[in-house]
């Protein structure tokens, strides 16, 4: 699976990014990540999840996962992240913070 993760926005407007090819991860890391993708039912989530009223300065997550033949993108504001998606976003935020996956 190829994963493109961007956390943009926030008051500072500073983006965090991670591009991950799960095939290149260690087996236990690959399994942990793919389990979180599966637990999130990622490919069944709507493409946009935004709060009403929209508010301002919240982090915005953009996540694209390609697992041929499927490719799906979800854009979601931080205050309306579905519970089952949260562990995946937290995991990818940690990977992005390492700076190894830009």
């Amino acid at each position, binding site marked *: 699976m190829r994963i493109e993760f*961007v956390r*943009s*926005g*926030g*008051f*500072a*407007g*500073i*983006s965090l990014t991670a591009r991950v090819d799960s095939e290149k991860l260690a087996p236990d890391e690959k399994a942990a990540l793919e389990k979180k993708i599966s637990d999130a039912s990622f490919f069944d989530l709507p493409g946009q999840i935004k*709060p*009403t*009223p*929209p*508010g*301002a*300065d*919240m*982090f*915005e997550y*953009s996540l694209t996962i390609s697992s041929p033949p499927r490719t799906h993108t979800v854009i979601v504001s931080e*205050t309306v992240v579905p519970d089952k998606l949260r562990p995946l976003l937290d995991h990818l935020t940690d990977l992005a913070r390492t*700076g190894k996956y830009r």
Partner: protein
Amino acid sequence: MNHQVNCLHCIIPPHMLDSILANGNAAQRKLALDCIGISGGIRGHRQALMSAVAYLTPLTAPGKHRTVYTANNGSSLPGQQMRDEGQPPSSDVAVNEAYDGAGLTYDLYWDVYQRNSLDGNGLHLDSTVHYQQNYDNAFWNGQQMVYGDGDGQLFNRFTIAVDVIGHELTHGVTQYMSNLDYQSQSGALNESFSDVFGTLVKQRKLNQTADQADWLIGEGLLTASVHGVALRSMKAPGTAYDDPVLGKDPQPADMAHYVNTTQDNGGVHINSGIPNRAFYLTAAGIGGYAWEKAGKIWYVAGRDKFKNTTDFQGAADLTTQTAGELFGTDSAEQQAVKNAWITVGITPGAPQTQPQPQPSGCVTAPAAIIRSIFGGS
């Protein structure tokens, strides 16, 4: 209708009537109110009428009501109440900063623009501090302010900078006024409005004129280990930080460097550098305290003229038009607004305000009448 009042309405511009309402004695204010009563019907002085209404209605009990909560490092909002309006300071510095910053922001809007809280109707100001753990952000969720403690490595707590607090509260003001769409140019204008009035809260607190102010957003928010002075510079967008971890401040200073991106709702925190600099240039061009004239122009344009879809060109047109209405066509103030937008690469195309026909007999003694109103004894 006596002759003097008739004369007043054709001479005294709306912003001066505002000033009389705010600063004059009882007799002077009555004259100004009489004047607005007449001129409002004849000339549609919407701004003066709004001020009169604001003056007459909630002056006796303006609705400053702040409540600060803590999320105790969780995500539940609003969380546990820590300090309500009028209560003594807490032992928690973030609680007090959120309380005091909300008060300074309320005071700017009330004292200078006669706006009673975010909605103009005394909306309570709710803030939550200690949101999540190591949380590097502050936001407005449509109903309240939320502040993180920062991670301590890159960011300090977000209540440390009063302009951040003014910024978040101004998102509430915008929501109740133009409700600028939080996407692309209208979103960048929404962000810029928050930076403008956030920095005005700070400048007013420090009693700084435009040339004394640093025009930085989020000064003190970055830790000493970061190479940078703040998160944004309104005076010199793109120069606030340049750090191995955070990267370089991406803000453009003019339209030639506008950033097209799908991230960050279309770059709302990036392209805000352009209108931010237009405001700085306006304030620097006019001189004095930025909240008095430049701030007034932006506030009135945002309140009365902006729509949810207003873009940068619209903002340039409408602030130029507003400056003409408040201070006169081709006034120094209007020229400052025009020049500012031209410098950032946008030429205002504001319709020219037609000169108002003046009743006969009114043009001979404006200076004496103004002196009498302002009571130069």
